[in-house]
């Protein structure tokens, strides 16, 4: 077990493509760190640099206090789980799991013991004599985990290990991997483009985009205090609503105006956010879908909207809204299932109670939870919260 440190690490591919720039990140002993971001954000490259599969252009990577920039992969004492499992087709499950130990010339008894132990943890005991091609996707995934576990390495590296599984199995394996990681207490770096995986599995989550690290925080912190527009729009499903509004001081009261709507901003935001210099200008106003609810009665910050579409999910109802006049919704970069980000105008969405009485085409009045407003700089996208950097 060991700490993994990236110190201003950069990766520039021949031809000048910058895959990772100035990445500084520390993964503590036993910590489950998730690297998340859209495709091409550099997360996999970062992982491969720890594994030694990619040369480091600049900066220092160390594992357990030892600089490993020039250490061969086999001497780094790390285990890696690949996206397509990379099981050796000519070997049985048991041989696959014990292969790394065999290379290290461990005694046969010891190899057997460790393989059996790992197989027990992963519920693979009865499959030890089968070949990978005779296993289901989930089982293969577990073998790949097993191959990592038997090594008893200093760190686990996982490269989108669940992306080849169907949705149900993915949820199952998510908890399974988390359980095993907690059980073994080995520092783990887990790469994914799926923000649900990131939120549910990580002790901390590092959000990357275009080679740069945007924010590292606990999942809750990331959700509650996104450092910029990108993180706000990336984390959460559906993501945060981001609306371009003009900020005005009307008789000592801060008011947001967009379309024909106006929202009064509680005065506490004057101190908690750096808004003063944007008064009279535009600001990106962010609000999570669950911070919008159907208003009953007067008072509070209210919005009048038309329901374009509603989705009943059983436990809740999503209402996609539009406002009478031409409201500008900030374009968001949203990852699709295959991880390719697309820029599109998103609609404002509210997460309502399952029994909420909304109809497509109907008008609704929504109350905004004034405790959870977010403000971002329209130029830089940075959060205007004091203390956010």
């Amino acid at each position, binding site marked *: 077990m060991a700490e993994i440190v990236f110190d201003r690490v950069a990766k520039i591919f021949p031809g000048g493509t910058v895959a990772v720039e100035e990445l500084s990140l520390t993964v503590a002993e036993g910590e489950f760190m998730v690297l998340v971001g859209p495709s091409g954000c550099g997360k996999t490259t970062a992982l491969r640099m720890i*594994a*030694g*599969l990619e040369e480091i252009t600049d900066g220092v990577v160390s594992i357990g206090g030892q600089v490993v920039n020039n250490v*061969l*992969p*086999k001497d780094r004492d*790390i*285990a*890696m789980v*690949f*996206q*397509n*499992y*990379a*099981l*050796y*087709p*000519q070997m049985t499950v048991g041989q696959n799991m014990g*292969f*790394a130990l065999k*290379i*290290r010339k461990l005694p046969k008894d010891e190899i057997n013991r460790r393989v059996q132990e790992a197989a027990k943890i992963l519920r693979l005991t009865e499959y030890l004599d089968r070949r*990978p*091609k005779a296993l289901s996707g989930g089982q293969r995934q577990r073998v790949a985990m097993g*191959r990592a576990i038997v*090594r008893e390495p200093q760190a686990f590296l996982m490269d989108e290990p669940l992306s080849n599984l169907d949705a149900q199995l993915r949820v199952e394996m998510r908890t399974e991997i988390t359980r095993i990681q907690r059980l073994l207490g080995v520092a783990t770096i887990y790469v994914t483009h799926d923000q649900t995986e990131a939120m549910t599995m990580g002790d901390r989550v590092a959000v990357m985009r275009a080679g740069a690290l945007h924010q590292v925080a606990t999942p809750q912190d990331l959700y509650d205090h996104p450092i910029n527009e990108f993180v706000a729009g990336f984390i959460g499903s559906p993501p945060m609503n981001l609306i371009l509004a003009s900020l005005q001081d009307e008789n000592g009261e801060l008011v947001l105006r967009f379309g024909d709507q106006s929202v009064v901003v509680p005065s506490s935001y004057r101190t908690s956010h750096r808004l003063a210099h944007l008064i009279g200008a535009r600001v990106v106003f962010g609000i999570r879908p669950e911070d919008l609810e159907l208003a009953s009665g007067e008072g509070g910050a209210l919005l009048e909207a038309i329901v374009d579409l509603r989705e009943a999910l059983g436990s809740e109802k999503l209402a996609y809204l539009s406002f009478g006049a031409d409201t500008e919704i900030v374009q968001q970069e949203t990852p699709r299932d295959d991880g390719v980000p697309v820029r599109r105008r998103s609609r404002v969405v509210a997460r309502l109670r399952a029994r909420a009485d909304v109809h497509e085409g109907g008008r609704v009045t929504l109350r905004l939870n004034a405790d959870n407003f977010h403000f971002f700089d329209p130029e830089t996208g940075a959060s205007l919260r004091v203390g956010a950097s």
Partner: protein
Amino acid sequence: MNTLTASPPTRLRSPRRRRVTRGVIFIAMVVMAIVMLYPFAVMLFTSFKTENQYLAGHGTSTQSWHQLASSLPIFQQLLNSTIVCSASIAIILVVGVMAGFSFAKLQFRFANLIFLAMVSAMMVPLQAILIPEYVNVARFGLTNGYLGAVLVYAALGTPFSIFLFTTYFRRVPDELIEAGIVDGLGYWGVLWRLALPMALPAIATVTVLQFIQIWDDLLVGLLFLQNPAERPITVGLAALAAGRTTSIPQLMAGSLVSALPAMLVYLGFQRFLVRGLTLGIDR
């Protein structure tokens, strides 16, 4: 209410029509088999006749088989063919596997250009380079031993072998190799312990095709193996055919003996051969 979606009904052919189709295919296959086997049958039946019986068209005898051993050092020649074949194939495999793995999985300068240059050598017919090749080999004084022929066969067979192994190893996912490296292997280890066991069908394919080609070849043996004691079986048979009086039954017996090893190798490796041409690495 539950709605059951039924899959569209599959159109089944009538049993009668299916029987007819299968019958036609069967007849076509029988015809092809007869065409293929006919020369062998002629060889076999002719070999069991004397010269006169052959000319007369009836009667059987084992005389030509008895005489074969005395008119040809057939066992020595079979041994010679085996030595030349095995040594050439060994070189072709070793070079092919290593070069194929390098071209497929290692990154180095001009890799594609070198690969193309090597593979384009497949297009050059033997006859076009035979004379310069002979001059070269003769200058090194290698025409009086196995080595000259072995080197020529190896040089002729290696481009195809490199091509096959390169395309084969390209189908091995990079992640498999990286998994091996993370597990503690170097590139040599990856090649010998991971890639090679996966390439068995390709090895079988190269072995069979090259064995048949080298074993049946006459020209190189004739030119580069001039010491009578080192002649391969094909050269021996040619000598038999070129004699003043050629005994056709004896020639047929010799040809059968000569054809047998190649057929056995083919039958033995047939299973891998099919896999070698069809196998996709299981992901």
